[in-house]
């Protein structure tokens, strides 16, 4: 058993303070991840724990010993480090590099013995690198070399393993293999692991606890479910994100959203009929384009409902798995009345949401242009015994335009924008509603 205690350390490069009062404690058998944007001090933290950069304030203890008072060799026997990148100068073979991990356990003139070789072989088997034991380290790819370096760290037989973005050069398959291996070592050999990671999801999935760093300060520390919240992600990484429990892995899953491109608001409102996630992408695109988006009727906990919540879209909602009540239907019509277009997304229609098409029909009667986005033919998503198809045919016959994809939709909206703005102005001036129908005039 070993304990690693970081007690309120400050670190500086020259006069620039990199770490500010960082404090946490890790025990054997725990796997901690450090997350943070570039320049937040993640690598510096690893450097100071690995005795490369002495903190200007505070102490770091392995059990009862201050690491900066221990001998280099004593620390090396207990703590191994896997750096971000390992440029290696001379033509050593992979095996020779891994055997260097035995250095802290050998005497000054000692030659590696059979035991040392066995330990190295074992580590190389674990990281799947024994196959190129004989090859020169300079000939290996970045990912292969990183696995050799991890094998070297394991050959050191440490109690503590520090990793600085260890999966940086690895492809996805190797990333998972390495993370699985680290978890296994952590649990079976009671290794204490602290790693810097770039990928929230990899960290959330494998680490017991997370540290979120920003500008050298700890923003949140603890179990990933408490640290990796939407609010913290926004604060530390300055991106909006969807944080959900992944249905398969059961781990938190963070989906960062791209930043809005700051299009000027268009003063045009689009109402969306969607469901089951079919409208989510479009909601985001239209919001980014500067449209005001409304939606309805959406069922609670539906993906489109969650997206609407996230994008702060005004929406009429209905309880999950319930048919649309008269009350919601009226509220939806009310909302539609304020919009300039109505877009019907390629969603599935059944008895539960058929009234949304009825609402679209009402909208068309009041002169609101209807655009039917048909990414999938209606026949394949009509679960209302043909009623939805009938509605759509009727809508089309009365001037609803069908587009095949989002791009076409955006092009159509852009081409109509000017006409619509004019019409809006006119109707505001003359207060004669629906004097001009933009779609029919085409």
């Amino acid at each position, binding site marked *: 058993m070993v304990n690693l205690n970081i007690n309120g350390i400050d670190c500086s490069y020259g006069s620039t303070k990199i770490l500010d009062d960082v404090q946490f404690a890790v025990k054997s058998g725990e796997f901690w991840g450090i997350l943070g944007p570039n320049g937040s001090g993640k690598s510096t933290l690893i*450097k100071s724990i*690995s*005795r*490369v950069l002495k903190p200007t304030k505070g102490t770091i203890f392995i059990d009862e010993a201050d690491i900066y008072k221990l*001998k*280099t*060799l004593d*620390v*090396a*026997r207990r*703590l*191994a*480090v896997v*750096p971000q990148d*390992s*440029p*290696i*100068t*001379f*033509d*050593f073979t992979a*095996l*020779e*590099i891994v055997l*260097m*991990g035995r*250095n*802290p356990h*050998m005497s*000054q*003139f000692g*030659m*590696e013995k*059979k035991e040392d*070789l*066995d330990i190295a*072989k074992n580590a190389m088997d674990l990281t799947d690198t*024994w*196959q190129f*034991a*004989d090859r*020169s380290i*300079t*000939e290996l790819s970045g990912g292969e070399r990183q696995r050799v370096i991890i094998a070297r760290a394991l050959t*050191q037989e440490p109690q503590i393993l520090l990793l600085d973005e260890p999966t940086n050069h690895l492809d996805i398959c190797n990333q998972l293999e390495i993370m699985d291996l680290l978890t296994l070592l952590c649990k079976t050999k009671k290794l204490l692991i602290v790693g810097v990671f770039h990928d929230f999801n990899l960290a959330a999935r494998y680490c017991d606890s997370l540290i979120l760093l920003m500008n050298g300060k700890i923003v949140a520390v603890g179990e990933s479910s408490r640290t990796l919240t939407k609010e913290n992600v926004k604060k530390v990484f300055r991106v909006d994100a969807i944080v959900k429990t992944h249905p398969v892995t059961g781990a938190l899953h963070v989906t960062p959203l791209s930043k809005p491109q700051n299009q000027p608001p268009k003063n045009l409102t689009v109402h969306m009929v969607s469901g089951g996630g079919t409208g989510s992408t479009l909601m985001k695109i239209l919001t980014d384009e500067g449209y005001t988006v409304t939606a309805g009727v959406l069922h609670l906990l539906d993906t489109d409902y969650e997206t609407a919540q996230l994008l702060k879209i005004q929406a009429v909602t209905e309880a999950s798995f319930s048919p649309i009540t008269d009350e919601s239907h009226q509220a939806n019509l009310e909302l539609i009345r304020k919009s300039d277009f109505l877009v019907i997304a390629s969603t599935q229609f059944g008895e539960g949401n058929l009234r949304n098409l009825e609402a679209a029909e009402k909208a068309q009667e009041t002169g609101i242009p209807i655009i039917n986005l048909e990414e999938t033919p209606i026949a394949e998503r009509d679960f209302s015994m043909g009623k939805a198809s009938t509605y759509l045919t009727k809508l089309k016959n009365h001037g609803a335009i069908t587009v095949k994809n989002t791009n076409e939709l955006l092009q159509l909206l852009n081409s109509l924008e000017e006409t619509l703005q004019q019409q809006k102005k006119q109707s505001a001036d003359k207060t004669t509603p629906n004097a001009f129908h933009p779609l029919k005039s085409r």
Partner: protein
Amino acid sequence: MKADTEKKHLKRISHWKLYLVILLFGFIAVLFLSLNLGYAPIPYNDILRILTKQVPLLNSFVETTDITRTAEVIILQIRLPRVLCGALVGAALATAGVTYQGIFRNPMADPYVIGASTGATVGSALVLVLGVGVSILGVHTLQIFAFVGSLTTVLLVYGISRVGSRVPVTTLLLVGIAMSLFQTAIVTYLKTVASDKILHGLTFWIIGSLAPTESWDRVWAVLPFVIVGICISYFYSRNLNILALGEDQAQHLGVEIEKVKLILIVSGAFLTAAAVSISGLIGFVGLIIPHLTRVLIGPDHRILLPVSAIVGASFLMFCDALSRVVMGSGEAPVGIITALSGAPFFIYLLRRKKKGYNV
């Protein structure tokens, strides 16, 4: 097939002793060749007997009455010290070269990379041109000044490069270059005020020659430095291996990096200073021998260092022997021979590897 890798590795290590034995025989062969070659050729049989006569216990078994006194003096008082000096200088330069290439993780590094050469040149130029110190130190003035100049320059470069408790390698190399330029300017100035005769001597010294080493006091003067220097480098040979991973990583593996760096730089400086003090600036040995041995036996310093020392010693003895015979009556400075033979061979090595040169 992969199951053999372990055995192969252990076997490779066990072969190291064999390499050393073979190379030692090569060294002795070159030694005899060097003693044989010269203005007055002396037969191998005579050389062997003259040498054996000097060894206690064995001397009663050999008869040297048929060998002339002159031959004995040539071998024992002139050629043997010179040949041994060549071996010591070669071993010292090769060891310093391996050490510096290892510390600086730069295959272009040689013993002169951080100012050892220009420092020695300033020292010797001061003696040759201005006659500084000759009245006090007598005949050894040049050697002492070269030694001190070389050593102080390296220590000065090291001191200037120090940032806090660390000495970054890049800074060290850059300060070395700046210091060399500065000292070259001093030497150039001294050359402009020197007479032709002195200038000739200085040029000879800068090219490097073993001609001034035909006396035993030179051997005894450098022997301790060379032996201690080689032993120190060898003591840290595994640390030099680990340094190939970078300084941070070496520290993570238990190497006290700044301490090791200081010790090795100083030991390399002593080796270089000892070498230049008796032979001047012999080029190429410190650069090429480490490369050559690395190509032959791999980058592991535990074998690279001793093999480089032996190969460096043999190479310089051989070049010196050539320098004594190629020109007939006179002799060419050995520095010219090492450069003339070393440079083309180096280029051949670079071209030989298909995928470019892996150092």
